[in-house]
């Protein structure tokens, strides 16, 4: 379908640091992606879970749960891939150093520490860098 193949959507929004916004942000983003005929599972599993993790880390870690601090979300999607960026006001963190293996026997029964792991496993690529804030960028390629 040539029309969808040429479609490119870029979306930006901003929320206060309040976890109650997460679900609505996820709805806005996944709705966009689903319109580009991504695989249903990418729309119902990979994207919502990875984005929820990035948002809750931005709110609770990066912005230390201070409501006034803003979280910015960018979504850039075409028929090839979707790139999500979540930007918080924190000073950044070392993605690789912070990533743990929650499946190891000692970690399996822990309550926390699965966020970055899920992001890494549900998305094709996860990066973190600072650029006017701490940016977490995640990329997922479309499949039908």
């Amino acid at each position, binding site marked *: 379908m040539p029309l969808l193949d040429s479609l490119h959507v870029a979306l930006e929004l901003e929320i206060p640091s309040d*976890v*109650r916004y*997460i*679900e609505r942000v996820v709805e806005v983003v996944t709705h966009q992606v689903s319109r580009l005929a991504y695989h249903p*599972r990418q729309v*119902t*599993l990979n994207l*919502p*879970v990875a984005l*929820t*993790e990035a948002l*809750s880390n931005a709110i*609770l870690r990066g912005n230390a749960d201070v409501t006034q601090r803003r979280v910015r979300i960018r979504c850039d999607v075409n028929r090839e891939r979707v790139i999500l960026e979540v930007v918080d006001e924190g000073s950044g963190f070392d993605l690789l150093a912070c990533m743990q293996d*929650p*499946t190891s026997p000692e970690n*399996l*029964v*822990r*309550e*926390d*520490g*699965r*966020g970055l*792991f*899920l992001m890494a*496993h*549900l998305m094709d690529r996860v990066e973190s860098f600072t650029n006017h804030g701490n940016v977490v960028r995640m990329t997922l390629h479309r499949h039908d």
Partner: protein
Amino acid sequence: MSFAMQKNGEVVVVDVAGQLIVGNRQELKQKVLDELEKGERKFLIDFSQTGYIDSSGLGVLVSLSKKIREQGGELRLSNLNDDLKTLFELTKLDTLFQITDTRERALQSF
């Protein structure tokens, strides 16, 4: 999202409707702990109406299972759709929980 609770014989059944994520997991935790406090020991959490679960939702399940076991109780899970199964497999939590396909089978298994 909502957490509806009902008693089925000796089993407290919790239906998770919608997402189980950082914004509402505390509510689920509190509801189950309240029942545990009241003396309930058998718990079934049913996911037939659940959307997605994030790491803190998974974390609450881990924490509840520990607390229930410490009181000599049991927690079982039922009706995970394919997305949720993948999530439990990815995190190996499928090895930690007793997961049953249907609610009926879960209820019988206690």
